């Protein structure tokens, strides 16, 4: 590998014009981080228009505004292989110069946690810049006889149907959650997204479903008001010590742990709960994360985190964040570190337990190596 000029997209075009200037700034950069005249590529391993893409396109211009030297931040969609392809590419190619960042999602974490053979990336190598939590609410149909969250016990023994995107998708979290709280749920696979699943619920084909918070507020709350849906519990959020607490967006709803207790009479614990908790953290509190490649200097990481802290006060950010992020704050520093650790580490035993269960109950094969 030769270290050729580290030009970027915009740099390549403006090379003739700005060669001299770029050189001057280039030398200054070693002392103090500045991305002036540079282009930062934000790799999103998902297609344009999806949740992760929208999230990145919302953050990119703000990041550009607050990073030192106001670089251009472009979102590069490198899709394929359920997000493993673009992530592999980042792991193999990105240089520790702060000019390439990666945005991951639960769909990137899950194959890694499950040991998918397509995964050739190692989270532990990377430096976390920011974590973007999300949450969700599980609701049921009044046809089950349940009229309030407190009556969740009535669901025991009933035949519930859930529209799932697949056993290894983000819907693994409800799968594990329902299973251990003793709910008998038939998972019907092949849905294209949670929106599709909500449609099946509205059509009466399913009787239990969940939506992420903003979709819940926008699309399910009207159903609740009309009496055609009953909220059961929120997945909950993690406090600073990593404990599961009620989602501040839905303070009146119990979180999953409370619902579990109502259903089973015990506080959640044991290896099944630990497995659930690992995937829950990777899928919700640590759903979307931004990474810099390994060996990136602490100055660059700090510059990024300072920019993110600054951008959160921007009026543009404040005005539009609810539509994109829902009701959750993007975090940096220690909070992000904690989510990163919890959301990307699983013990080999727990992994084996989940993989074996998926194979036995749902015939899931993770592909051959």
């Amino acid at each position, binding site marked *: 590998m030769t270290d050729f000029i580290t*030009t970027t997209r915009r740099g390549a075009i403006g090379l003739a014009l700005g060669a001299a200037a770029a050189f001057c700034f280039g030398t200054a950069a070693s002392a103090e981080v500045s991305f002036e005249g540079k282009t930062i590529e934000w790799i999103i391993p998902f297609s344009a228009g999806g949740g992760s893409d929208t999230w990145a396109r919302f953050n990119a211009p703000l990041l550009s505004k607050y990073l030192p030297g106001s670089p251009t931040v*472009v979102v590069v969609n490198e899709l394929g292989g359920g997000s493993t392809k673009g992530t592999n590419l980042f792991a193999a190619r990105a240089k520790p110069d702060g000019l390439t960042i990666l945005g991951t999602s639960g769909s990137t974490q899950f194959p890694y946690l499950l040991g998918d053979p397509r995964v050739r990336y190692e989270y532990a190598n990377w430096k976390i810049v920011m974590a973007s939590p999300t949450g969700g609410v599980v609701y049921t149909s009044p046809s089950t006889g349940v009229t309030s969250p407190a009556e969740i016990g009535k669901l025991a023994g009933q035949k519930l149907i859930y529209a799932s995107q697949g056993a290894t998708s983000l819907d693994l979290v409800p799968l594990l959650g329902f299973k251990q709280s003793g709910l008998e749920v038939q998972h019907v*696979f092949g849905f294209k997204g949670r929106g599709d699943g909500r449609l099946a619920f509205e059509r009466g084909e399913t009787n239990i479903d969940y939506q992420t918070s903003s979709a819940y507020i926008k699309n399910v709350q009207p159903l609740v008001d009309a009496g055609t849906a009953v909220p059961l519990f929120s997945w909950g959020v993690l406090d600073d010590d990593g404990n599961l607490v009620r989602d501040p967006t839905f303070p009146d709803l119990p979180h999953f742990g409370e619902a579990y207790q109502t259903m089973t009479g015990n506080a959640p614990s044991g290896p099944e709960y630990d497995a659930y908790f690992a995937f829950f953290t990777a899928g919700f509190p640590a759903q979307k994360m931004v990474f810099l490649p390994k060996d990136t200097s602490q100055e660059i990481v700090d510059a990024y985190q300072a920019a993110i802290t600054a951008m959160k006060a921007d009026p543009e950010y404040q005005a539009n964040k609810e539509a994109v992020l829902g009701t959750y704050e993007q975090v940096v520093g220690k909070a992000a570190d904690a989510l990163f650790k919890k959301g990307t580490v699983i013990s080999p035993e727990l992994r084996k337990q989940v993989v074996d269960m998926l194979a036995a109950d749902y015939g899931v094969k993770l592909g051959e190596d």
Partner: protein
Amino acid sequence: MIDTLMTALATLLTLEHMAYMLLGVSVGLVIGVIPGLGGIAGLSLLVPFLYGMDPISALGMLIGLVAVIPTSDTFSSVMMGIPGSSASQATVLDGFPLAKQGQAARALSAAFISSLFGGIVGAFILTFFVLIARPLILMFGSAELFMLALFGLSMVAVLAGRSLPKGLAAAAVGLLIGSMGAAPATGEFRMIFGTEYLYDGIPLVIIGLGLFAIPEISDLLRKNAAIAERNALGSGWFQGLRDWWSNLFLSIRCSGFGCMIGAIPGLGGSVVDWIAYGHAVQTTKDNPHFGKGDIRGVIAPESANNAMQGGALLPTMLFGIPGSGSMAVFLGGMVLIGIEPGPSMMGPDLNITYSIIWSLALANIMGAGICMLLAQPISKLTSVPFQYLAPCMIALICFAAFQATRDLSDLVALLAIGLVGIMMKRFGWPRPALLIGFVLAPQAETFFYQALQFNGWGFLTRPGVLIIGALTLASIYFGLKNRVDDTGPTGDAAVTSHTSRNVQIAFALAMIGFFAMALWDALDHSFLGAVFPLGVGVIGVVFGGILLLHLWRGHADHPAFFDYEIVGDHVGNEGNSWFWTGPAWLAGLVAGTALVGFYIAMIGFFIAFLRLRARASWLRTLIMTVAAAGFILGLAYMLSLNFPSGLLQASYDLPWPIR
């Protein structure tokens, strides 16, 4: 409601909003003209500029783009026989023969006025439908969606060509290719043959370009002539408008279908043009010559595909569920400007809804008008000797193809599917049948499995299922009665084609080999993962077997015989070059990409092609290469795209764009 309507219209009709919409429309027109690039690429171009824009202007711009792509994509469909986007594949069937007969102007004007009309009908239906659409959309459960997928598949009956077993075998090939990758019920990976690329299945754009664009380019390359055999556009502008007027009811019906099919989430709009085309064939009684230049074969799909865009807005706005890839990007754009779709779009946000609908109507008018004006200059392209046009077309098509996953594998897949397309064209295998099978395979399988899970076999007695089932049977009946033969002149074609019987048998055997491979692969999977490919594979083997029997034992005039190399209209002309010319050049470009990456390979390809094949002067070669390299670079820059890399990039760290 009238108040909201008028307020929405008034906000739209300000200079600023119109200017933004015009910008969207212009980008959409350009993207539509370029084969293979569709709404996803266009919206991706505009999304970075959304930031901080006023929502109504931003929406106007996005809608302007989405609305006109099915208008301008007609250019390359009619004039080159290459679908400009997946929305106008069916237009090729009759539009291109019309152009070859010197009636391009007639076909284009009929297409544009149909597009315009379809778009307006779409907006009109939306205006009234939006308030009552929610419960109607919710009536379509998995069972009904499965039946609709079957209804779409029934169009194979119309498009099966002269030999029914051949057509059904082609559809089975499509269904199997469509079932590659993760099984909907279990997530297990089928027919991936150890390649990571096939985990996600082959993208639609690759199938579309491989089946339709590559064979056409390869054909044109051999003839050493311009595309237009007579004058480029011909006369007939008013003829086209009159044609549309006398088929007004066809246009209305197809617009209605288009809007409805677009509005049903989960079906996807990719087959709407074929359904409209099939409908035109099924309902035409007087003197049909579909497949050989029937203007009704242009009016029907063009009316439907613009109306479909309007319909597709409904599930996007009311449920936040994108009906197609471009609607997904549109939805992302809406969220970026702070609009969250949902039931509020027919409540407090109704004015936004109406401004979207009005934008749709206005954009269609703008788009069709501009297309009419541009027809004359754009048509000049077809009188350019094809050797000069060919490298540009090949480069653009490769560029469009690797939009899919931005990988060298896209180009390899394009080449492979292109070879299949070339052989299918030569031996009269109906490519539309394969395409329909491909598009509907995942829907048919997924919805069937879901319907069984939700309703058990009882789903067959649901009223919606029975109604759509009856429609499907009627469609098959009328389809078989009026089967379209797009393979050229009839009569003694079969007799003379008989001479190359052995090659035709060899190709049929290769197709049966593919079925066998699918069956063999299916044996490895669980029941739920295997049952669909197993069933389709068996059907394929049966019809492939019947076809073999026809080819082996049939009389010399049996309709199964067809060889374009014997009966094609180019036969006997001077200067036809080698059959494999086109694929060979494409293979060269793909091999070059594997070595030095796409951008360098493309430049080398241009120089080599222009010097060796077109025998252009160095000056012309240089100018054309620089222009093309600049254009592709600009496009890639705006799309934030890294070109596929090769061996060179694996060993050296190079700057963009040759990275």
